[in-house]
């Protein structure tokens, strides 16, 4: 039987996978994908916890969590738009997306 706790464990695992990927890979687009994975883990957490609050309390208690998830999706879309634009600019300038080869600044 799958219950809410499984959803929360899945959220934690998804977040861990995303974090690992974001820290390990050097491809900027992949890092962005991993960050998206982390954000989806967050959304899963929010709706699961919202459901949990609704089960133990009133249906009203679920609203903030669900609203938060919608805000996260909206803002993440805006963030990705800016991020991809920045990556595109770098690729046009230098033809690389690997952050270990984007290293003019150091010291």
């Amino acid at each position: 039987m799958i219950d809410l706790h499984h959803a929360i464990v899945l959220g934690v695992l998804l977040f861990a996978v995303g974090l690992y990927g974001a820290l390990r890979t050097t491809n900027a687009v992949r890092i962005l994908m991993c960050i998206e994975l982390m954000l989806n883990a967050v959304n899963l957490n929010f709706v699961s916890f919202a459901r949990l609050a609704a089960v133990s309390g009133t249906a009203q208690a679920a609203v903030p969590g669900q609203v938060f998830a919608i805000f996260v999706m909206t803002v993440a879309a805006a963030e990705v738009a800016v991020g991809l634009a920045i990556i595109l600019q770098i690729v046009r300038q230098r033809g690389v997306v690997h952050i270990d080869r984007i290293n003019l600044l150091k010291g």
Partner: protein
Amino acid sequence: MDWNLVTPELIVAGTGLAVLVLDLFLSEERRRSAAYLSLAGLLAALVASVRLLAAGLPDGSGAAAAGPGAGLWGGMLVADPFALLVKLLFLGIGLAVIMLSVDFVESRRIAAGEYNALVLFSVLGMMIMAGSRDLIVIYLGLETTAIASYVLAGLLRGDARSGEAALKYFLTGALASAVILFGMSLVFGGTGSTSLTALLAPGFLGLSGAAPVSGPLALAGLVLLVAGFGFKIAAVPFHFWAPDAYEGAPTPVTAFFSVGPKAAAFAVVLRVFAPVLLLGQAGGPPAVLPVLFAGLAVVTMTVGNLVALTQKNIKRMLAYSSIAHAGYMMVGLAVATPQGTAAVIYYLLAYAVTNLGVFAVVIWLNNRGTGDEISDYTGLAGRAPLAAAAMLVCLLSLIGIPPMVGFFGKFYLFMAAVEAGMAWLAVVMVVNSAVSVGYYYGIVRNMYLQDEPAGEAVRATPMVGTALGLTVAAVLALGFLSEPLSHLARLAGGGL
């Protein structure tokens, strides 16, 4: 619902949109109007905030208007003395940055309308962060600031270093946002509410009695929030992006990053953690939080200062210097007392004013073709005596020499640490300040003591000159006004 409480935000948002529209109708030679309109909007918002603050102070008539309970949307957004005081700081930062960037934007052919609108939207996000008392609103303010900042870092489209700065700032910023959000989801899971006040229920975070599972869950969320905001304020070990982003970004934008988003992140940290830390003092303490802040403070200031000693580029050196100052400010959180909170608020003001002064000089020289290496400042006292004197005043303030404002900032933090029985932390702070003299003095020595064949005199443009004059005046004046200002900071901290 009292829309009056958000007039400053509404003015800034409206001005930002107006600048975007105005930009469409301006000819190439009249692009400066965008900056003038932004300055007018920020000034109007500043006046509105001062009026709200004056009305909300205890001796004013409208004490209830800005009381802790008052706010918009069921207390999600509040206009208490803390929020208003910090908003004044943010608006001042916005004014200074726009004044400093007018000539830079023109000479580098940055699109003036976009630039000014982005600064305004970033300031708007910072103001929302200052007034939020709800996780959703904090997140929205944070992202409003951050997304505008990513674009600002990359605005020099022809410069590969600017693009690289933007990419690094974006990737770490987005990662930090994800960590903050995960922390928020755990706090929400623990408390069942997105309101910050839910954390303060008696015994909730004491890990005993009423909350055997949800208390620890919320506490884990808070620890993740510390890590996420550690990225935003560039605390060691989450600081690696800052020197690159600061060096590559356009110089006025670097000035903005070093004070604006950093101060806003500190405002949120104070808003979330100050009440929780004080709660810990009253009994049933989440002891992990003060220890965490103390550790971060020690590591951040030590690493920041030591690495700054080895820097050759002034923007990079100032990045490490700003990391060190974030470390000092965290001392005020680690002590977990009302005095500590007030000291952080005071230090935020002191640091922002002083650092803007330093950057004003850097931008002045940058506009006139001087490079960003510290060796480029050799013999500056001969070429531009005023710039050198202003730089000297600001550097003395950053070191913490009386009567500059920076001295009082460090003094209050020091006293807060001693009074809380954490004298060792105060000693670490003083030793670090002594180390910092090493790299600040390097600039002073280059400016005054090294002879350079006298070059051409370097004059400031009116805008940069005015901004520099105002910040240096503030560095001196706020030092003399430290008593009323610290009173205001205590008042603001008390209402958190």
